[in-house]
């Protein structure tokens, strides 16, 4: 029943990183693909992002970081998701993230990391697939 609603996704920027080009492009692309997209704006804390995610009842969170603080901020979001009992929300991200770090983050629970040059179609497909699965499970 609730599966008829469009998928809902947050695109988030955390920390002090003001590079919002990628986040805005992704937000538009997901919206154009038929999803409901909430863009948090800049300088959010991991707590704020997860709170917004829960309040807005989203299926996924996409976090964009290009400042080098990814190894601190991604794990902080995961911790918040677990603490709030929201670990089922599909958490993915992107930015200037070296391959080794991306691997480590995925092991820690980030579902996917997209780096510069990743095609929008691939990101949309990932979000539709993973958030769709989550919707089927959670309803």
């Amino acid at each position, binding site marked *: 029943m609730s599966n008829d609603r469009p998928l809902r996704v947050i695109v988030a920027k955390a920390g002090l990183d003001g590079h919002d080009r990628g986040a805005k492009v992704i937000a538009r692309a997901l919206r154009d693909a038929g999803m409901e997209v909430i863009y948090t704006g800049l300088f959010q804390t991991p707590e704020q992002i997860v709170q917004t995610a829960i309040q807005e009842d989203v299926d996924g969170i996409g976090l964009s970081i290009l400042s*080098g603080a990814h190894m601190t901020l991604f794990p902080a979001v995961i911790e918040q998701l677990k603490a709030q009992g929201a670990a089922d929300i599909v958490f993915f991200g992107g930015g200037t993230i070296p391959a080794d770090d991306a691997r480590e983050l995925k092991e820690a629970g980030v579902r996917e990391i997209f780096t510069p040059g990743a095609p929008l179609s691939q990101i949309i497909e990932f979000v539709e697939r993973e958030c769709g699965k989550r919707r089927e499970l959670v309803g």
Partner: protein
Amino acid sequence: MAKMIERASGLGAAETAEYLEQKARWEAAWHSRGPRRNEPGSGATDRTISDLPLAPLYTPEDVAHLDLARDLAFPGEYPYTRGIHAGMYRDRLWTMRQFAGFGNAKQTNERYHFLLAQGQTGLSVAFDMPTLMGFDSDQPQSLGEVGKCGVAIDSLRDMETLFQGIDLGAITTSMTINGPAAIALAQYIATAEAKGIPRAALGGTLQADILKEYIAQKEWIFPPRPHVRIIVDMMKFCTSEMPKWNTISVSGYHIREAGSTAVQELAFTLADGFAYVEAAMKAGMDVDSFAPRLSFFFNSHIDFFEEICKFRAARRIYARHMRERYGAKDPRSWMLRFHTQTAGCSATAQQPENNIVRVAYEAMAAVLGGTQSLHTNSMDEVMALPTEKSVEIALRTQQVLAYETGVTSVADPLGGSYFVEALTAEMEDQAEAYFAQIEDYGGVIEAIEAGFFQHEIADASYRYQRSLETKERVIVGVNAFEKEELASDIDLLKIGEEIERGQARSVAAVRANRDAIHVEEALSELKRACRDEERNVMPPLIAAVKALATEGEIVQAMVEVYGRYTERAAF
């Protein structure tokens, strides 16, 4: 008669019968293959990367409206379309200035000594995010960011370490910092003065371009109006006390990186520059007293000719506005001097070695466009801070360009090219159209508040991304000629968490070992100056820095007066 003279000085050739026959033959040949479509992925297109229309060929007719003396003139002459020096690079080679900073001040100082030893001729400081946003390393907002994308500078002590063993009277330093620019300048002055070098002897550039922060880079602290007041205070201070210091580097680089087109970069950057000119004039400064110390900073993207034309158009527009609109009389006030950096956003994480080639073309465009200084990006910057090896290749790229290719021998070698002149004029026209739109909002600050620039840029970046998806645009290794990525064997520079802990300890030590009452008095005095429009904030800022107030404390004091800026989130 008047018409004949105009025609004689124009660029368009006389249309002889032979010429017209040749032209007809070419048109027949071009059209003989029917209407051409640019197959997705073919590379050749009828648009620049910024969506400006391109003809397959340019002829004298495309430049017939241009006047040699009025629009081109000679290098070193108004309107400087062909360059600001008579002999261009025969007079003076561009400055090779690689932007660097990471970790703590000691590590960055070592990188500076390395770069100077490799033949680099100027320093350029990259600060970390907390420093750029006005936070100390031990504030909660700084978590995970300390030393990551630049060097962490909390107090005067860090600035002193940063320039240890470097003669500040002999080199020039560029500092890329905006929100807290006045604080960084105060720290630099205090560092030099502690070594007995007078502030008047200091040469360098402060970015201090806050308007483009609201437009593109988003590293602001206060709302626009008080920020501009601080910048005007700095301009006044430098004009009277630091004759060799470039007060503002009006920056299009970040506007472009945020996804703008070349025309938007050109127009928005110049509009910002004019806004500072107007603010300073409104504060009672004579335009010729400060304009010669303004400089610009542009991006050099991958569309080769469009970039060259952008630089040429920028010089012509600036000269015309400075002389005609603002009444500047000193030729140095008419000259647009600029630094260029190759486009970070054109680099790819896929097959990163290809970035070396991109950077070389972009650097050449900057030089053919007449840049005064240049930073070439390193191939690995799309993934992390550059390693010493990749920085060396980037610097060598400039050296090959300067010493081997011969591009330095002739001033404005593309001047007079039908294509280059036509596109230069087209970009000038489009920039003027943007100025009119900005004027309709009431000015740059009003257009920022209305979200005009932000929206224009977001639209352009989305259009561009879409063109990659459809393969109208090709990026080698990304949407064409891809290859299965093996684990990259490029070494990356990593900044460990110990930097953050060490920096937090050292700023705590600074706070513990200073005269606390002295600091408090200095900050109170600073707040009084901030509240009083008649005063200049620079002297109390220098006093606060010398009292060892940290950057975070100084910013906090100023926030108490001015408040913090927040942006309405929209995509």
